[in-house]
């Protein structure tokens, strides 16, 4: 799933969530008034409204109404979230101004892996069997460890609650010859229950470049099979077995030295989660979980004569046993967890297979001293074989000022361990000749280069003796929730200070004039902003919601350099340099100050028709430095602001059949040169049959 040349793409797509609404017709009023259950914030079932953390939830009913098929599409419509194309060919999310590498993605509580260049490609996840998507914003390492620095997205699949047998199939067809076929089964018969989900998705891709040979997104197809079984041995003991298989095949084309090279790029992924839920008594519950997953990517490129020009592979494994126990003490809950991570990676540009081992435990106390006050306090301790141990604390509070207003605040620590690439990469660009070395292998490789006479000089003062440190953040949130009658509003101000950010730095010069780079803890950045959400229900059939985020993300060292008068820019007319002032600094690349959305949901029960219209807005942002100072300042070229409108209409016939038509990117916004992951208008039609 790679976007040619650029590292990005988003697919159009479309899907059918098959049976969600039909088997047990859901009254939309009910959804609104019910306090939703949320598990990601505490690892226990909690009512969403009383949580002291910035959270949001996407319900399956809204996913179905939107008529989207892949996770990136539905996430891009959420307040405070931007989906961005990233290096390595995936599309990830930016939360509170932090890159997609810093958000943990879970499916039913266990993580997805396969971040070959940091980003986890959200296109891998079909939304056809999702019950809800839970989003926690802000540092959450106190429960989840590494990667949960900007937040956690937990995709919860459906779980049958009462005896039933239902299912559905759907076919969705859209622009770019995109097909999405869904099959869903859900059943429960006394002790045995389960779900079976399968999805086939194919598309011809789309093209923004004028190169006839290659496309922006090459044709690809993928298949997902996701069975999940539940067996109740007794009231007190339940076994859950969840499996997930995913396979994607994409054409891979490139023009190398005027030669048209062709190949394929494959992703194979599977995951198996086994969990035993054990209620000891009314006060103590334990969960024993074993999770293993494997992500494998392979690609090759042949020259016109059919000879192999290039190939690469990436093969990552994760094994994670974890035991969680929750003690209920009056109205309070104490949750503890202990687990082990065993992770291995083999890939091109690594000398050999690398293993990461870590052990961890966490404790969290969900404390309600008085009815109006909820306190969440906890920490997690991670011991790792590759870097220093991490202690991640968290403290959060929710205070109900009145039945309709509550105040919440949270303070937490987040970290992201140096990844395999930052420690073990050994890559030399074949056409240009520069080299990138992982921190742990750099010293040895540089010595080898030196012996081979490939080094001109080494940069003085570079030492690899200390361990590379994890990137870490301190996160602070302060917000309020207001809920009265037809109006629901929440507002949250956030601040994140991230230190030890890992970036590349030149460590030596080669005799070919090119540099050798390695990874170091260099940057310190901060992000701050405010997020606002409001929903107004005019009636049970009509609601409007509005979301907005203002956000600033800046690099501390850049601010210091500007203060010291060391930052310059080039005048586009005279091409001469001039000195920048602090107010000229815009911030980090690919960050927008303003993002907003408006959503309208309207149903006409008489004719069983639902309409949903969602408009998202993103203000201007800069992708590259265009005036030769390596930073983004107000004199740089910016990518213009844009609006995207998505519309869908669905009509049910006799509760069995639903017909949906719609258009994503209704007004056909494109920016072929600067935004490669937004294709033009995609019209779709979907037919769904339930039983």
């Amino acid at each position: 799933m790679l976007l040619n040349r650029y590292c990005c793409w988003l697919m159009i797509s479309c899907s059918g969530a098959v049976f969600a609404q039909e088997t047990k017709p859901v009254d939309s009023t009910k959804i609104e008034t019910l306090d939703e259950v949320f598990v990601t914030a505490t690892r226990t079932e909690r009512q969403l409204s009383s949580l002291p953390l910035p959270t949001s939830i996407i319900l399956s009913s809204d996913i179905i109404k939107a008529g989207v098929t892949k996770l990136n599409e539905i996430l891009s419509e959420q307040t405070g979230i931007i989906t961005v194309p990233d290096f390595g060919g995936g599309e990830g999310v930016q939360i509170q101004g932090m890159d997609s590498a810093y958000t943990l993605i879970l499916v039913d509580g266990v993580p997805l892996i396969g971040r070959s260049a940091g980003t986890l490609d959200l296109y891998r996840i079909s939304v056809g069997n999702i019950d809800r998507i839970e989003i926690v914003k802000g540092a959450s390492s106190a429960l989840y460890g590494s990667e949960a620095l900007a937040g956690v997205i937990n995709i919860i699949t459906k779980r049958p609650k009462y005896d039933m047998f239902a299912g559905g199939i759907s076919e969705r067809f859209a622009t770019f010859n995109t097909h999405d076929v869904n099959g869903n089964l859900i059943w429960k018969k006394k002790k045995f229950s389960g779900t079976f989900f399968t999805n086939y998705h194919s598309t011809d891709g789309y093209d923004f470049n004028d190169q006839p040979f290659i496309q922006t997104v090459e044709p690809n197809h993928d298949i997902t099979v996701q069975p999940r079984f539940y067996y109740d041995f007794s009231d007190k003991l339940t076994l859950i077995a969840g499996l997930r298989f995913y396979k994607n095949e994409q054409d891979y084309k490139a023009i190398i030295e005027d030669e048209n090279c062709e190949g394929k790029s494959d992703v194979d992924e599977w995951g198996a989660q086994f969990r035993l839920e054990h209620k000891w008594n009314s006060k103590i519950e334990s969960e024993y979980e074993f999770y293993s997953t494997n992500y494998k990517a392979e690609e090759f490129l042949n020259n016109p004569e059919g000879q192999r020009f290039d190939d690469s592979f990436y093969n990552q494994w994760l094994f994670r046993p974890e035991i969680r126990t929750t003690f209920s003490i009056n109205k309070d809950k104490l949750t503890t967890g202990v687990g082990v991570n065993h992770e291995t990676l083999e890939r091109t540009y690594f000398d050999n297979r690398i293993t990461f081992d870590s052990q961890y435990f966490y404790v969290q106390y969900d404390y309600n001293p008085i009815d109006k006050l909820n306190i969440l306090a906890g920490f997690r301790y991670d011991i790792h074989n590759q870097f220093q141990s991490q202690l991640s604390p968290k403290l959060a509070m929710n205070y109900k000022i009145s039945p309709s207003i509550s105040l919440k605040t949270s303070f937490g620590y987040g970290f992201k361990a140096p990844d395999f690439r930052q420690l073990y990469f050994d890559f030399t660009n074949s056409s240009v000749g520069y080299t990138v070395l992982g921190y742990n292998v750099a010293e040895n490789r540089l010595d080898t280069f030196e012996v081979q006479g490939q080094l001109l000089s080494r940069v003085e003062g570079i030492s690899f003796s200390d361990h590379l440190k994890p990137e870490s953040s301190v996160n602070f949130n302060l917000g309020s929730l207001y809920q009265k009658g037809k109006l629901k509003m929440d507002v949250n101000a956030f601040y994140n200070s991230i230190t030890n950010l890992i970036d590349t730095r030149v460590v030596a010069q080669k005799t070919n004039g090119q540099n050798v780079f390695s990874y170091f803890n260099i940057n310190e950045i901060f992000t701050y902003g405010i997020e606002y959400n409001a929903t107004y229900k005019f009636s049970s059939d009509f609601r409007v919601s509005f979301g907005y985020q203002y956000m600033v993300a800046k690099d501390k060292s850049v601010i210091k350099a500007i203060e010291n008068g060391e930052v310059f820019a080039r005048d586009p007319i005279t091409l001469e340099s001039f000195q920048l002032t602090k107010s000229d600094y815009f911030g980090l690349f690919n960050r927008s100050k303003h993002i907003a959305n408006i959503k309208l949901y309207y149903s006409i029960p008489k004719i069983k028709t639902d309409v949903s219209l969602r408009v998202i807005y993103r203000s201007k942002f800069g992708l590259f430095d265009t005036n030769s100072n390596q930073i983004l300042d107000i004199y740089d070229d910016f990518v213009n602001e844009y609006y995207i409108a998505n519309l869908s209409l669905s009509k049910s016939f006799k509760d069995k059949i639903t017909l949906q038509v719609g258009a994503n990117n209704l007004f056909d916004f494109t920016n072929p040169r600067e935004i490669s992951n937004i294709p033009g208008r995609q019209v779709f039609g979907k037919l769904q049959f339930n039983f």
Partner: protein
Amino acid sequence: MKTNFFKLSILALVVAFSSCSNDDSNHTVALETKTVSNLNAPQTGGQGQPVGGAFTKFSFSQNAVVTDDSWDIAFRGTTIIVNGGDEIGITDEPTRTGVGAVSIVSSTLANVTTFPAAATFAQDGATTYAIPTGSGNGWYSYDQATNIISPIAGKVFVVKTHDGKYAKFEILSYYKDAPATPDATSLSRWFTFKFVYQPNSTTTF
């Protein structure tokens, strides 16, 4: 021929005298900022092949490309050398005959008004470039996505010329006709730069 030669010599003398007297009478005369456009600095090889080809040698005092030993700096591709120090040890390298050196200052061209400290001047030497090569090290940054070479903003090079005078220069573009935003079609290895030459024995520009 003879008459012509005589006339030219007279002219030269007059010019020389008049400029001399100008300098003597008015020390605060503003030095002229000159622009050199499209100085071609071709090279052979590259992209993994050994780099070679003659350097394009430039003299600040003559504001011209020269072929003799009166050069101050010389260009080949992205490599810039000075007429001072020892040979670096690269192919087709001209011999250093002067006392040249360079000091790299972070500033704008206009704001560099005094000569940097003597200790900050560097000469070429065995495997050492007075102006370091490679993206982000010396005068340019290289964008791997677009393959564009951009001169780093705020880099001013104060050059001690081959004969011990001083000049300061700022590179504006590496592409022919100095387009504001070079693209894949722009012709590279064509330098445009601005410089100020200080012919007098002083410490300021």
